[in-house]
């Protein structure tokens, strides 16, 4: 091989090889990561990816999923054209159709449903990615539907509710300046890699790590103190720690005296959680609970690192989250350097992005009170008070009962029905709808239930605006042409808005009145559509972004000059102890140990102004009769490093790292049930069972079966009932219910186990 051939094979960028490095971002996952992505492009095709060094968030790193970008973007199953269903729902019998026919079919049906049952009968849903959310919410509202909902029905929002019920705001850990990090709970080393190096650096500088986690995760592995609790008992642990801190006089008396509401009641309640009682409930040794409490209360400053789901994926989740979050203010670590610092949420809810926008005005051109009540309004009143979305967990009930009004349509971007407990029930509800449209990169098992499917672009084929907590902003632009006839999600939304005759692009002035409905069948204006009918609204999109960005002083044209992103000019200053000037943004103006908002709804079961500890609805303690036959705790959705939800199973590189759907079992439990790694087992709950391989590992907590979610061949969410929900947030109790495992032998007709 000559030198040039070696250079090309080795993908060395430069003029000689014709390989150019173009900047983009990865959105394979989307919990405020968006790692900078260097795409090595030759002849219009990406031949390699790498992390972008200059992005201060990810600093050149990628996770295993981002590194597999090319197998995501160029997967042979990428949808290349719009599709129309020609067989029964779920049959996967589709015919390719033109964009014109697809968009007209969608808008004709949306106009019909609006006329027949009112616009509120259509649900607008967004899974991953999240860049399109403000645009979809605006579409829903201008169409007249309050039923904008997202996968945040099961992720992040409940954690935010927990914090906001206490402080009126979230407050992120100041990792760079803290001396003690209480991780409650998370494992960014696998699931949020932009922070991985910062965490390891903090460890190396001697920051004390206290990690709450049932598993022996790598994060727990670097902990000085590992509080290995029974899943769902976080509230009891937090209250016991609070009790130690209060009774040993280690709390911030001045702060509490001036800024706390309900401290005396909280103190009295926490006093009922002795160390011995907490050990009995949580399984964490009493001495360790006390040691952790003392470390967190005496090392100054100390910070708490939460994450989106593990504490709130429980039927008692929000109350548990409140109890944990309260420790921050109790110890005087709220809004101080090295503690938990509150900053305004910026674009796409990134805390500390550092620049103001008109996102709220854009995405909510109408008030909730201008529209009929949204999904989950009656059933989840606290969610409804606090979150600007519908709660999608209520969809099956509303479809079944028509209460308070019938649902008849669904417009979804990135839908994964397996996300929902009683996933088949959720899908059956979707099948009852009159008209379903799904936009995705693949004909997923959810998309197979649509009447029309639209092909979406990946991040490297589209433009999007992203902000980072480091006060850095990127306007990523396409590095390759869209594959086939795929289009960016935002172009699709603009196209639908145009065809529906909505006043979508009227940005200035007061909330625009809803347009007169376009008569079904009438030709929509052709502006903004390609010859094949595909929507092309790039200019309108950028003009909108400029309008949204106006308070920041930044313009898209300026951001385009910095393809890898740029620091925010004149970022909003970070200030501390803002409560001294402004109070807390809670109804009482104080930090609330007893919540004003929850007091309003305290007649409802499971809602209490104090962060009351309750067992998970199905636990060995709360349901011993069930536990007699289902003796293990079932935890679902706990992260694996090579997968993100359902997205990366189909990528050979990531799939090769863990080939089979498998349940992680602790060796003690495996011995109990005579199970070895590679055995086929039946994982059952009272609601169903799945057959999976066993993976015996000390990663798994004793007494807990950890099963990853979303496998088409082993859908663990069929094992949870649809109403296994936290009454405050509507979040499913994914991480604590009850199950059994049974080894399947050769007599069951299954093959002998093969090594994973």
């Amino acid at each position: 091989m000559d030198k040039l051939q070696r250079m090309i094979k080795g993908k060395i960028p430069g003029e000689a090889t014709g390989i150019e490095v173009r900047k983009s971002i990865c959105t394979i996952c989307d919990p405020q990561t968006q790692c900078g992505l260097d795409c090595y492009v030759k002849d219009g095709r990406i031949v390699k990816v790498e992390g972008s060094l200059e992005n201060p968030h990810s600093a050149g790193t990628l996770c295993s999923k981002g590194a597999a970008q090319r197998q995501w973007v160029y997967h042979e199953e990428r949808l290349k054209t719009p599709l129309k269903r020609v067989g029964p729902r779920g049959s996967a019998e589709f015919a390719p159709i033109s964009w014109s026919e697809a968009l007209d079919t969608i808008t004709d049906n949306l106009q019909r449903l609006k006329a027949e049952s009112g616009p509120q009968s259509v649900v607008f849903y967004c899974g991953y990615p999240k860049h399109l959310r403000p645009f979809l919410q605006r579409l829903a509202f201008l169409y007249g539907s309050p039923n904008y909902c997202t996968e945040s029905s099961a992720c992040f929002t409940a954690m935010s509710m927990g914090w906001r019920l206490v402080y009126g705001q979230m407050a992120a850990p100041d990792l760079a300046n803290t001396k003690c990090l209480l991780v409650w709970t998370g494992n960014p080393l696998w699931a949020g890699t932009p922070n991985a190096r910062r965490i390891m650096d903090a460890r190396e500088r001697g920051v004390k790590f206290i990690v709450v986690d049932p598993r022996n995760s790598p994060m727990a592995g670097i902990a000085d103190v590992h509080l290995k609790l029974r899943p769902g008992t976080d509230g009891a642990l937090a209250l016991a720690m609070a009790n130690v801190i209060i009774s040993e006089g280690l709390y911030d008396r001045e702060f509490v005296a001036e800024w706390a509401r309900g401290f005396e009641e909280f103190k009295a309640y926490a006093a009922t959680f002795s160390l011995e009682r907490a050990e009995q409930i949580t399984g964490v040794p009493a001495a360790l609970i006390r040691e952790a409490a003392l470390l967190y209360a005496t090392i100054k400053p100390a910070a708490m690192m939460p994450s989106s789901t593990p504490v709130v994926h429980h039927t008692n989740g929000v109350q548990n989250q409140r109890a944990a979050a309260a420790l921050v203010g109790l110890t005087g670590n709220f809004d101080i350097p090295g503690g938990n610092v509150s900053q305004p949420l910026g674009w796409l809810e990134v805390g500390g992005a550092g620049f103001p926008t008109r996102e709220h005005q854009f995405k909510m051109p109408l008030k909730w009170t201008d529209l009929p009540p949204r999904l989950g309004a009656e059933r989840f009143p606290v969610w409804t008070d606090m979150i600007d979305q519908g709660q999608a967990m209520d969809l099956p009930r509303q479809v079944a009962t028509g209460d308070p009004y019938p649902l008849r349509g669904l417009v979804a971007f990135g839908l994964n029905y397996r996300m929902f407990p009683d996933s088949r029930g959720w899908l059956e509800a979707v099948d009852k709808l009159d008209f379903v449209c799904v936009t995705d990169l693949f004909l997923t098992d959810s998309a197979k239930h649509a009447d029309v499917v639209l092909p979406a672009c990946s991040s490297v084929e589209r433009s999007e605006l992203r902000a980072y907590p480091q006060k850095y902003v990127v306007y990523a632009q396409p590095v390759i042409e869209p594959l086939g006839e795929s289009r960016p999600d935002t172009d699709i939304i603009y196209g639908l808005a145009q065809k529906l005759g909505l006043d979508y692009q009227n940005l200035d002035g007061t909330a625009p009145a809803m347009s007169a409905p376009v008569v079904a069948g009438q030709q929509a204006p052709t502006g903004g559509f390609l010859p094949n009918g595909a929507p092309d609204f790039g200019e309108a999109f950028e003009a909108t972004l400029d309008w949204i960005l106006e308070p920041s002083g930044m313009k898209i044209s300026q951001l385009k000059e910095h393809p890898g992103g740029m620091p925010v000019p004149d970022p909003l200053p970070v200030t501390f102890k803002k409560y001294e000037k402004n109070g807390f943004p809670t109804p009482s103006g104080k930090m609330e140990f007893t919540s004003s908002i929850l007091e309003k709804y305290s007649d409802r079961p499971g809602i209490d102004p104090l962060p009351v500890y309750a067992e998970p609805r199905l636990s060995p303690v709360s349901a011993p009769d069930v536990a007699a036959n289902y003796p293990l705790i079932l935890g679902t959705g706990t992260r694996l490093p090579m997968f993100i939800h359902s997205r990366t199973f189909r990528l050979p590189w990531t799939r090769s790292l863990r080939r089979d759907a498998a349940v992680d079992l602790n060796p003690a439990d495996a011995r109990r049930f005579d199970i070895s790694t590679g055995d086929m087992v039946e994982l059952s709950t009272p609601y169903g069972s799945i057959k999976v391989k066993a993976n015996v590992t000390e990663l798994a907590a004793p007494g807990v079966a950890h099963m990853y979610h979303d496998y088409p061949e082993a859908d663990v969410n069929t094992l949870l009932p649809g109403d296994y929900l936290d009454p405050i947030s509507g979040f499913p109790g994914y991480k604590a219910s009850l199950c059994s495992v049974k080894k399947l032998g050769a007599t069951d007709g299954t093959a002998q186990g093969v090594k994973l």
Partner: protein
Amino acid sequence: MNHAFYLDVNRCVGCFSCAVACMDQNDLEVGTEPTAWRQVFVIETGSGPEARLRYVSLACMHCEDAPCMMACPTGAIARAPATSAVVVNAEICIGCHSCSIACPFGVPRFGKNGTMQKCDLCSIRLENGLEPACVRVCPTRALKQGDPNAMSQEVEKKAAARLAAGS
């Protein structure tokens, strides 16, 4: 200059980014057999409260006195002059597996055509002033490459700092 990998085993967290970055750089086809050039191992020791999980990412060690080079009957394995990496020329490999028998680290892998394939320390990238793909991607900066003495010096410097901090 001599190049070698260094793995800070206290920072490796088993995230697999390195393994996939290598697959991406080298267009590896991965099927049901473990043919990937970089492998990440979970080492579990102890049980119950004493249980520990550690993670180790391994590819070729690029030995100075490489047993695979000695064992290869066709001379398919040689040292790349510019980088000191041990590289295999698949075109003259006869797939005899002698290298596999000789290598104490279990590095040689065999693709569909039966010839040996393995990590080449991203030699062509090193020649062009770029880091190996695995090193470049590592989220915890556990994986490094460079002159072995220089890298040892860095590790020792950190140890000295820890000693000073403790005294």
